[in-house]
């Protein structure tokens, strides 16, 4: 199809060629919609050029297996870590996202899902004690499937957020002393070199996350970037 457009172009004004080429590109963009199987299928999530590097970031892991040790926010071996900044008193965005991750992992082949760790960083360390955080994540994921990152040093938290391009802000307490925390709602998939391979904005369907993960874990991701 491309050749048929280009071949007669030698005899035509350049501007016409551009219009035809543009039309071809538009068609290509449209036909790419929703098809999972074509040869240059893109990831559903967002990728960056160059990719964000977070290999220098580590935070205390308060999960049962973590013992509060400083742990890198990255995958292990041939696996991925899905990093999320959130808090447990968040009624809407956080549980929606974690439920989507849970569903994506559940519907993947088990041998691939085993290579994925979820690392949640609390942006509300005061209320999210290790016990609260572990109870929360244990509701969504297997005990060995998550890391509970928590630091009470807000500068350390801010440095970790900045590395990912994320941010958070604790809101003013209401009349009951309750407060909300605004935060970046992306999920970041980090490989074992600390490179963010893809990030999913809030609301990405779990099926899209699942298919991206399956592609990345089968070595079919944007490694060439």
């Amino acid at each position, binding site marked *: 199809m491309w050749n048929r457009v280009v071949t007669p172009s030698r005899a035509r004004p350049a501007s016409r060629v551009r219009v035809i080429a543009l039309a071809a590109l538009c068609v290509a*963009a449209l036909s790419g919609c929703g098809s999972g199987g074509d040869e240059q299928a*893109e990831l559903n999530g967002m990728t960056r*050029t160059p990719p964000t590097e977070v290999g220098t970031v580590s935070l205390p892991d308060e999960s049962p297996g973590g013992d509060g040790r400083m742990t890198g926010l990255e995958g292990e071996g041939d696996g991925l870590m899905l990093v999320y900044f959130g808090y447990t008193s968040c009624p*809407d965005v956080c549980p929606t996202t974690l439920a989507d991750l849970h569903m994506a992992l559940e519907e993947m082949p088990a041998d691939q899902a085993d290579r994925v760790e979820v690392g949640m960083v609390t942006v509300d360390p005061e209320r999210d004690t290790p016990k609260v955080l572990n109870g*929360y994540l244990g509701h969504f994921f297997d005990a060995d499937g998550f890391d509970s990152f928590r630091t009470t040093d807000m500068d350390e938290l801010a440095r970790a957020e900045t590395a990912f*391009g994320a941010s958070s802000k604790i809101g003013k307490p209401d009349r009951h002393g309750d407060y*909300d925390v605004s935060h970046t709602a992306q999920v970041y998939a980090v490989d074992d070199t600390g490179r963010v391979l893809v990030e999913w904005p*809030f609301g990405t369907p779990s099926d899209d996350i699942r298919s991206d993960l399956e592609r990345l874990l089968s070595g079919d991701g944007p490694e060439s970037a």
Partner: protein
Amino acid sequence: MKKAILLSVAVAGAIAIAGCGSDDSTDGTGSASGGTTVTDVWTRVTTPTQTAGAVYMTIQSPDGDTLTGASVPSSVAAEAQLHETTDEGSMDSTDSMGSDDSMDSTDSMDETHSMDSGDAMMGMKEVDQIDVPAGQSVALEPGGYHIMLIDLAKPIEEGDTIPVTLDFEQAGEIEVDATARAE
């Protein structure tokens, strides 16, 4: 000219992305009165350590109506508030969605820009009312409007039903049951 091409491609790409993967489902409980109907009422299960929950639903009104408040029994939660999840900060997400080998130059341009400005934060605010325009339906759904349950009396478990009283300007009180789902 180059700019025009890039723009057109971006538009085509945005259309392609927007056209993908929308699916609507309406199941769950419902209740009606005075023309205003409420369907697909659900709440998400919570963990024992969670203090807040959220109730979602779809509201339709042929003549238009306004949801002005909600309440739940104290055996469920201390308070119910109308809330809206909002985007704070700005990032044009369609521009930087995905990557395409044939458009490397545009990608790196847009994405460097969004790196600089940081990713958008999402926050919440209490709202006084939720308007349902005549003949339209308004969804209370994850990432948008929801009824926030504050200080849960006990965890919400899968299969639980939570009675919620909704106050409408036109229809008055409508009682609905929110079914707890794990999704």
